[in-house]
């Protein structure tokens, strides 16, 4: 399959909005995980998160639109605008029938939904906003981005738990490879820092309860890990075919050259402990990219910080890369700002692309006693030339999604 270029980056996270601010914080290894302040979360077993409090500063959206949409659509709209600006694309000049939107989301727009459900039970059906129907569901951001820009090409929202956005990007690459569209806005968004969504994440059981020390709570691949920390945000990239990038005379930040996806088919919640299907997804992605395992210079880890997940990920990497797995630098930078669930893979891709551009591997935080088997970059960023990298994103029950990216030569 053809390589597809990434020409624009739009990122909205607790670590920063816009790639410059985001990268400055990521390369410095700063934590942005804090006690939740949006509502009283003190009675939840886990009540820390990566929260965004200054989105309005970066948004040009009217109050009229904002009252109709959930925060996750707002984040997607800001990320899409940043990505288009970064790619130097004037969307009005595009053939909008040939522009697509491929986004991933896991849980929908719960801040809007739960507010309206509360009104339903208190005030009756007339208390519910008529925008509820179009605000909460996972494909709402795709719809809002398409309306905002007048985009009319083939588009799709992928719902596959935490693997959603990397899967959306993988799918978008397939569509672009077939020359069905000129360009795609690919990525994902998630806004789980709400009372009901936080409750669901708590009952899922994968959250760290280290509320007393938010900055050191999320510790993927550490022997003392007790779960991840949720975060909100969006990551969207502009994806285009190589000829179009050449014609537009703009730089490609990276090429997406391989994609693989499988399911464990094992358990409702947990992955298969041996990581066999993740290993198969990695092999599929490498084969799609036409490269050998030893050509990979960096692996961006999924890192849920739950023992069975982290160990299965290590097992999969060891099974594909063999003894070489001890040499390949790996890291899980989301330990700095939290797990964006359905948007996590897109943000991991963005971090990997920025790491390639700057020749610097961002670290995993809080990795004091690593699980055996991998060459973890921890504590501080490490200068390292990355030509080819692998990104792993996994969803509940063992949904495996793997992307290969390459640095343009």
């Amino acid at each position, binding site marked *: 399959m053809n390589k597809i270029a990434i020409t624009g980056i739009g990122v909205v996270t607790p670590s920063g909005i816009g790639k410059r601010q985001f990268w400055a914080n990521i390369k410095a290894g700063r934590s942005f995980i804090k006690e939740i302040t949006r509502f009283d979360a003190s009675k939840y077993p886990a009540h820390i998160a990566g929260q965004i409090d200054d989105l309005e500063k970066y948004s040009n959206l*009217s*109050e*009229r639109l904002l*009252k*109709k949409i959930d925060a996750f659509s707002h984040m997607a709209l800001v990320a899409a605008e940043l990505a288009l600006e970064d790619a130097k694309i004037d969307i009005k000049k595009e053939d909008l029938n040939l522009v697509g939107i491929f986004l991933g989301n896991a849980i929908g727009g719960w801040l809007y939904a739960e507010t309206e459900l509360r009104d339903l039970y208190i005030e009756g059906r*007339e208390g519910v*906003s*008529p*925008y509820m129907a*179009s605000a909460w569901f996972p494909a709402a951001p795709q719809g809002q981005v398409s309306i905002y820009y007048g985009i009319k090409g083939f588009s799709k929202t992928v719902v596959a738990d935490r693997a959603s956005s990397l899967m959306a990007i993988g799918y978008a690459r397939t569509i672009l490879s077939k020359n069905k569209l000129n360009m795609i806005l690919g990525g994902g968004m998630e806004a789980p820092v709400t009372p009901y969504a936080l409750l669901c994440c708590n009952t899922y059981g994968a959250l760290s309860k280290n509320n007393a020390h938010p900055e050191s709570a999320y510790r993927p691949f550490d022997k003392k890990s007790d779960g991840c920390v949720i975060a909100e945000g969006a990551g969207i990239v502009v994806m285009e075919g190589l000829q179009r990038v050449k014609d537009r005379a703009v730089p490609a930040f990276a090429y997406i050259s391989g994609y693989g996806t499988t399911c464990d088919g094992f358990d409702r919640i947990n992955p298969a402990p041996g990581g066999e299907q993740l290993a198969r997804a990695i092999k599929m992605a490498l084969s799609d990219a036409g490269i050998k395992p030893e050509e990979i210079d960096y692996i961006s880890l999924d890192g849920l910080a739950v023992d069975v997940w982290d160990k299965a990920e290590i097992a999969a990497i060891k099974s594909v890369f063999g003894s070489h797995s001890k040499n390949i630098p790996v890291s899980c930078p989301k330990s700095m700002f939290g797990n964006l669930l359905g948007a996590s893979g897109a943000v991991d891709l963005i971090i990997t692309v920025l790491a390639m551009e700057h020749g610097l591997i961002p670290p995993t935080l809080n990795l004091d006693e690593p699980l055996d088997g991998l060459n973890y970059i921890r504590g501080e960023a490490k200068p390292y030339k990355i030509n080819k990298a692998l990104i792993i994103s996994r969803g509940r029950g063992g949904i495996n999604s793997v992307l290969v990216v390459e640095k343009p030569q």
Partner: protein
Amino acid sequence: METKTRIKDLLVKLLKVKPEELKDDLNLSDSIGVDSTEMVETLIALEKEFGTKLSPKEITKFSTINDIDKVIQSKIAK
């Protein structure tokens, strides 16, 4: 306060538009791009404001402010 002023105030508050954007004799769809969902919200708010029942057929996004005023006036008169 006269009915039309109350209708306009309600639209400004509800739809987050500027008062000068509202034209009495232009329909709401053409003048400020009101869509069908916004119209449902407007209908519910008008019912609350004037303590009356309105059917979606009586007031649509193609109604002008003058049209709405007439409907409300007739309801209040009853």
